């Protein structure tokens, strides 16, 4: 059995700075992170940071805003201007941040419960207004941080600590809600689809307006174990087996359950003026030269 190749070339006095490309984006003094073995959140971070490089995003002008939950911890690990805000309110914080300093690129990175239960109202209105935000939702079908409670995305029949006999509620289909609310870019991938996800992140960085990316990731400790679905790798294998790529699919038809297809791809890509563009354009007409845009 071979060993891994050593980092060193004995012929070179100074070694090349070979390090995991993700490391330069992380607050290394805070490693290791708190996520469980087999949790998919770290995988999404790899894809996100790879896309930052691929898209040439200026890191000094990038800000990450997250809410509360396991995915909410992403903000704390990224070496960017990062804001770990209150439960459900990352989007309005991000709205204020972006409107106060429009040259910022603002990304909201949070979980399904944070963004769609307590945060649902804010999601709807930011999408409606086409606030210029990229919203990344890691959907693990549960409230992981607090021990595995029912989430608005939990599939019917799944067991959770607050649905101890099985979930009898109907889950929310996130891309459907995002499209209905007005999002201009809507995509869904799983952590199996690392290359597609990276490319979608890059495409999202190249666009403006309210962009929504849902990423299915396993919560092995709580969702998978409680429902006897194995480890994280088993969860990702299931994504591989059940997913089918359908770009442009009708978001009304792509709900998720414990069985059945997992439809992934880019579903919506329809630019329209952002909130601030609309405001500037409108007030420009109303006031002409007297209008003072932000910073103007």
């Amino acid at each position, binding site marked *: 059995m071979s060993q891994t190749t050593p980092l060193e070339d004995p012929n070179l006095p100074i070694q090349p700075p070979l390090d995991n490309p993700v490391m330069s984006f992380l*607050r290394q003094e*805070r490693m290791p992170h708190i996520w469980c073995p087999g949790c998919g959140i770290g995988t999404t971070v790899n894809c996100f940071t790879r896309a930052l490089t691929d898209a040439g995003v200026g890191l*000094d*002008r990038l*800000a990450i*805003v997250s809410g509360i939950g396991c995915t909410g911890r992403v*903000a*704390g690990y990224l*070496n*960017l*201007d*990062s*804001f*770990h*805000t*209150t439960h*459900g*309110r990352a*989007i*309005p*914080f*991000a*709205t*204020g*941040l*972006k*409107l*106060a*300093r429009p*040259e*910022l690129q603002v990304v909201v990175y949070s979980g399904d419960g944070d963004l769609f239960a307590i945060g649902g*109202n*804010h999601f*709807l*209105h930011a999408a409606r207004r086409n606030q210029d935000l990229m919203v990344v939702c890691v959907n693990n079908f549960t409230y992981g941080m607090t021990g595995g409670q029912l989430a608005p995305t939990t599939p019917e029949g799944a067991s959770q600590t607050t649905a101890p006999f099985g979930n009898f509620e109907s889950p929310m289909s996130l891309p459907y809600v995002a499209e209905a609310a007005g999002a201009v870019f809507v995509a869904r991938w799983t952590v199996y689809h690392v290359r597609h996800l990276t490319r979608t992140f890059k495409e999202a960085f190249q666009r403006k307006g309210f962009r929504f990316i849902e990423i299915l990731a396993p919560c092995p400790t709580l969702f998978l174990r409680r429902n006897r679905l194995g480890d994280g790798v088993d969860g990702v294998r299931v994504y591989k087996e059940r997913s089918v790529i359908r770009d442009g699919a009708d978001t009304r038809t792509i709900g998720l359950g414990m069985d059945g297809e997992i439809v992934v791809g880019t579903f919506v890509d329809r630019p329209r003026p952002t*909130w601030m563009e609309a*405001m500037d354009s409108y*007030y420009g007409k*109303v*006031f002409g030269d*007297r*209008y*003072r*845009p*932000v*910073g*103007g």
Partner: protein
Amino acid sequence: MTADPRGVLTGVHFLDGDHAACEGALAAGCRFVAGYPITPSTEVVERFAARIPLVGGVFIQMEDELAASIAILGAAWGGQKTMTVTSGPGLSLMMEHLGFAAITETPCVFIDVQRGGPSTGLPTLPAQADMMQVKWGSHGDYQVIALCPSSPQECFDLTIRAFNLAETWRTPVFVMMDEVVGHMTEKVVIPEASAIEVVERRWTSKGPGEYRPYEPGPGGIPEMVRAGDGYRIHITGLTHDERGYPAMNPQHQDRLVRRLNDKIRKAGEALVDVREDQCEGAEVLVVTYGITSRVASAAIRMAREKGIRVGHARLVIAWPFPRDRIRALASGVRGVVVPELNLGQMVQEVERSVPSGVPVLPVDHAGGTVHDPEVILQRILEAAR
């Protein structure tokens, strides 16, 4: 430094308190307001929405007060002076973000135009029943600064002061108006911009490698930055260390929470503003704030006409409560009268402050209108006996 003239509507105006507060915010340099309609405060943001396109900035009506109260914090970290405006029910919704602003030390201003409560209560009628809530309403140990205007002119002046205090102390600051002060129309003089003192944000002079968002400077107050300048800050509502990183243990909790509280509690004279009238040698001390001060003035005049030596201590800064000052003023009086449009809130602070043995006589009121000066007069006479 002085105000940006673009936001200053210099002149002599006839404005109500809500409108005057909006002008105060603009004069102070506020260029981002996120609000939500709620009587009797809505006019503040309505005016801001109408004025801001020609001044330069953003007004956004958010989907609820939860959103409004955190959108302003995002805007503050984007570098703007920001404000939100509400009344009782909205303030209740904003409590979580008051705590978040306090622990993240985000400079911002909240205006509460108080109305009858609890719950939906009396939307169009006055009260002063949020005074304890503004101090204790969020969970955990934190301090606030709260100012109480008693006229539209003060709504203008004290809103500017609120922004200045927010920047100086890197903390949320409240302007506790009420429905009467907000809706009464009086002369408001807005001076030239060059005559308005404005405190700039305490921008750090340190570079990205050295700056720490929670490293205390003089007075325990850290310097500030904004997102987008390469500092790569991390800001969290979790208990944190000086780098801003979560540090969830008793040692850091003690260090952080004590500093946050001492920042304000130990500010001393810098955060005392009590307007005193004939308090020296008084037999009776009347302690008031906000609109009740105006009504109490009438009662005090009547009492003085009867020969009673009545001192009037009007709290302009109600929080932190000026315990030492009230204690000093109450020494040697026969009684302290505290009229408020509530069932006894700030009077509890007065009771804690006065020397033992000095009687404190509340003049409470469930809200809905201002006191009848006769009622206050009777209590003054009672105190004088």
